[in-house]
């Protein structure tokens, strides 16, 4: 199983958290990272190239920070352009069928702030509905998100733990070592990755 990480961060050079996450991945043929802002600085996404790449991978990861309760603009651009009618969805749009999709996100707010009584009033799952439904439209299995939260106040040790979970999660997914139904029962994939490593998640 090959994992395609569609990474979108307009200011990656300043993102300590995302650097740590991506750095934790072992160099392996199983992972392909598409750094969208680096590949397409003019938003001129190469649709043919992206489609060819999608076909070669089984697990699609939308990896991005949460800005204004959604993904940075280029990821929306990518979805608008690449997930074409007749290719990804609609009549004859079966090229993504049965692949797995998920969001890996980083948020400034804590997990608690994304509760009904919290500052942001809705859960991440709610905010990520467009991704969930897009995945469903393209006949993909959508998994709960993996989230690094409270990113401004993470200690080095906490960040390292998150990075470890991230690498473990994607590692297990790449081995096909998972069952979609079980995973979908979690609110956050953090809990699965943390439980797998025998450590309580914060």
């Amino acid at each position, binding site marked *: 199983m090959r994992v395609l990480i569609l990474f979108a961060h307009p200011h990656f050079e300043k993102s300590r958290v995302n650097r740590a996450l991506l750095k934790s991945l072992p160099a392996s043929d199983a992972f392909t990272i598409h750094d969208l802002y680096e590949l397409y600085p003019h938003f*001129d996404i190469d649709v043919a190239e992206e489609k060819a790449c999608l076909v070669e991978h089984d697990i699609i990861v939308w990896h991005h920070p949460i800005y204004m309760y959604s993904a940075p603009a280029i990821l929306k651009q990518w979805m608008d*352009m690449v997930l074409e009618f007749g290719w990804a969805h609609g009549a004859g749009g079966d090229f993504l069928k049965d692949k797995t999709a998920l969001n890996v996100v980083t948020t400034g707010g804590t997990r608690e702030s994304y509760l009904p009584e919290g500052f942001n009033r809705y859960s991440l799952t709610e905010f990520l509905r467009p991704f969930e439904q897009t995945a469903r439209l393209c006949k993909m299995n959508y998994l709960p998100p993996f989230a690094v939260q409270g990113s401004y106040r993470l200690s080095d040790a906490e960040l390292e733990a998150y990075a470890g979970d991230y690498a473990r999660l994607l590692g297990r997914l790449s081995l096909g070592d998972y069952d979609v139904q079980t995973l979908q029962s979690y609110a956050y994939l953090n809990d699965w990755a943390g439980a797998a490593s025998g450590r309580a998640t914060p």
Partner: protein
Amino acid sequence: MMAGFLGQAIIYLTAAIVCVPIAKRLGMGSVLGYLLAGIIIGPFGLGFIGREGQDIMHFAEFGVVMMLFLIGLELEPSHFWKMRRLIVGMGTVQLGATAVLASTGLMLLGFTWQAALATGLALAMSSTAIVLQSLKEKGLGGTMGGKSAFAVLLFQDISVIPILALLPLLAATTGHAGAPHARSFLVDLPGWLQTLAVLGAGASVVLAGRYLIVPLLRMIARTHLREIFTAAALLIVLATAGLMSLVGLSPALGAFLAGVVLANSEFRHELESDIEPFKGLLLGLFFIAVGASINFGLIGQTPLFIFAVLLAVVLIKILVLAVTGRLFKLMPDQNLIFSLSLSQVGEFAFVLFSFMHQAHLLSDEIAGQMMAVTALSMALTPLLLLIGERFALPRLITPQAADQIADSIDTRHSVIIAGFGEFGSTIGRFLRANGVEATILDNDSSRVDLLRKMGFKVFYGDATRLDILKSAGAEDARILIIALADPVTRHDLIERIRGHYPRLRLMVKTKDRADAYDLIDAGIRDIYRESLDTSIRLGVDALIRLGFRKYSAVRAGLNFLKYDEAALEELAKHRHDEQSYITTTREYIRLQEQLLTNDREANPTINDHAWESDRHTYPSGKA
């Protein structure tokens, strides 16, 4: 006579060519190589050269003068001013303490106080030539230790003036009549007039540098005669040295001053590369002469005494230097570099000892022994530095050390722009707006002057000259942007870079498509056609004027740019298929036709279906 000169030249050059590479290979540095070469061909080695070593040394001391001129060139006046505390502070402590300790020791050995004081002062001096050459070779010139060493050397050079004034007085008090020959016509003048002359000489160097030399160089540059420029550069150094000797100042100090004055001029790099080879050869010659002048006969007679004195002198110097470095808060590793590098007795001591000998302050034997100590201490320095570097430094390196090494006197830039016309200067402005300072090379001196007034770091020089590229920092730079108008010059430059700096990334501006093909053939990847982006931008705006939505027009522009770049590479491959001879104009027309056909066949925007919602048709209820 001619045969004698030729023979000598052949001996010196051969010795250097044989010894220096071997020494470098063994990690000893070129200074030690030259010294060894001198010892080998000297009277106590193979005996190829005899006692004339001394004369050659005086001649070769000119290398030191040139070296200080070059150092001055690399040091802008503002930097120099910032160093004043180091120069005066460290210099006074080092010179004072060393002289006092050494003199006390010598008096205990039975020297008269006059002789002890004079000798002590001479021993306190260090060798500018050896220190700076060794530090530069090890890349330590820009470190705190290197800068401090330089500051102390400058102070020593300045103190030569009062020391030389003091010596006749000391000689007079010993009762020996007949002071040595007058050094300059000034000695007979009253003190205040001497001071005035010295100040006047300094001022005239500064004023002449600013108002006479620079305009003169500009005039010479316009003649485009390279050898005349070289002649002018040599003349500047020689004339300054001459003026300084006339008023009794150290010629090296004068040349340094001239260098500092010219550091701000656009000719800095040109002067640097013109003087550099002369300096290198003369310094080499100087070191060989020092090696040849070591009197092993004398050492053989009293080896214990000489080595004891040598050891004592070097230890005292290192001790005082280490304390000085500590007082001025040098990091331990920097202090080690500082202390070891300055631990030898300088070439100036040769002058002082022979002077004292003539003034009957020192006996024949003692003067000879002291000179032997001086020469040996010089030979010891590269060895000490080597030992320090191998064994002590690794233990002392502080975390900041790496940063300090990067902070050298002459800030090397990682981008060089060759050609600073409209195109190049826009790049320069853009880079600077983003905090990247580029080194700029241009050979239009009027433009260079204007841009410098606007605060750009622009240097005058022919970019295809290897020495200019080197002084512009081609070795350390990462990118060379070539924005030259003339394809022939550009071609020369590319060839030269390929040969000497293969790691330098080349980004090249071209005039048009045909021009770009030549570069593709030459294997250049990063090619920027002068008008491509602009014409597409204008086309995009035209589409917008015609009623296209802006984003669609901009996307069409981006696509066209990509398509055209790809087409360029594709067509370049097939360009040589055609056998028949075509004139440039006809080839140009043919190219245009080919392009127009291709554009119609493969409209790059046609496959762009994004956001075309009218194509989406779902059976029911779906968007």
